[in-house]
């Protein structure tokens, strides 16, 4: 077997590259599930340490699925969930700039608060799928890979999350 050292995950630069590529969606995934930053960081750390320990056995194309598999195994061990803290990016303007009367703005504020509260109350597995799509812009195929489930299951979870949120919007 020909082994190219520079193409091995054991190599510092390659490892860092893999880290940079996957850390954000991994971190977010954990965060959407736990709502706790420290835990998410710990899990990311654990997953990358596992990858490092097996760096000789895992090929670069396999690194991604290895990381997510390890990550999902770590999730199984964590049952407690905390509130997911979501916020809007600063100076986000949702209106088209036409309608700016105070009543509308008040309604909008109320709507946003309700929406966030509902997202926080979603089942972790629904929330995780929904937010991976909404915040991270992942396709359902990509989410399926991250969650370690089928695309059908992702669509189901996404759909259930949307129904929950729609109920809230329509009841305001």
């Amino acid at each position, binding site marked *: 077997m020909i082994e190219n050292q520079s193409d091995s995950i054991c190599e510092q630069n390659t490892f860092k590259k893999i880290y940079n590529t996957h850390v954000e969606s991994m971190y977010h995934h954990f965060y959407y599930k736990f709502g706790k*930053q420290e835990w998410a960081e710990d899990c990311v750390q654990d997953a990358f340490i596992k990858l490092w320990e097996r760096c000789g056995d895992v090929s670069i194309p396999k690194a991604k699925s290895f990381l997510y598999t390890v990550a999902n195994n770590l999730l199984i061990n964590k049952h407690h969930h905390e509130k997911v803290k979501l916020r809007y990016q600063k100076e986000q303007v*949702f209106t088209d700039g036409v309608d700016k009367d105070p009543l509308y703005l008040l309604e909008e504020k109320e709507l946003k608060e309700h929406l966030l509260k509902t997202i926080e109350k979603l089942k972790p597995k629904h929330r995780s799928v929904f937010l991976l799509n909404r915040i991270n812009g992942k396709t359902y195929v990509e989410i399926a890979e991250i969650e370690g489930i089928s695309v059908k299951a992702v669509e189901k979870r996404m759909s259930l999350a949307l129904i929950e949120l729609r109920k809230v919007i329509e009841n305001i």
Partner: protein
Amino acid sequence: MKQNEKILDWFEGKATEEDVKNTEGFEAYKKIQLYTSGLEVPKPNYEKLYLRIEKSKNNSFMSRNWLKIAASVMLFIGLSSGIYFLSHNTFITQNQIVEVSLPDHSLVQLAPNSKLSFNSITWWLDKRVSLAGKAYFEVEKGSLFSVNTKKAMIQVLGTKFEINATEEQLLVQCFEGKVSVVELTTGKKEILLESEFINKSNNTNLKKGNIPFNLPLWLEKDIKLKEVEFKAVVDLLKQVFKVEIDASKVKTNKEFSGILSTLDLNENFETLKATYGIKISKLNENMYIFVEDEME
């Protein structure tokens, strides 16, 4: 509440707003879409997190290797002591002769009530056997090893020899080749050539002499004698068969060359009768008398 599949496609960006405009509940979905598009979560410091990983990466690498090293050391100690004890061969005889083969194919005949031990693994580093009692060695030519006994270390240079080492005495007989005997207490070294023996007991001095026969007497094999005085032949018979022989009546200077049995006394008597022309009479169970046959 039913949901159009198109809505899912729209959230994934695979369908346009036009496509879903008329679906049930579109207004609500549009709001969800709009008000979740600017969401973000508290951002961790990914660089700092990476440094944390770097740090524990090295720790885990270290501990992993320490574990490996520790495990290998333990395994090595375990295996080597296991092999050492397993490869430690000891032979103890009671009332029979046992043939022992050494790792270099040298053969040892171990006499009754003797003990021989060696280690078949360390043999190749340290060719050494320990002996208490009596043994006859037939060593392959070119083999060099040593026999440790209570009193002396006997170095072998490719030969046939017998060692009889007990608490009280040491007898080394060299039948072929050369052996060197080093006394442990004095460090004195003696070289034995073919047909020489050395004898040392607690209360006598070192005695060196010639052996008239070619094999140990206790091996139950025929021995070959070469130009041995008649008196010495008689002494030999007395010693091997534990009998009394009165040969004072026989006067001869003729030396004996031939084969004697170590098992059958009568066969030897026949040989002697034919060689010396003597008559042998049995006086009682363990006593014989030799007289010259006047008929000849």
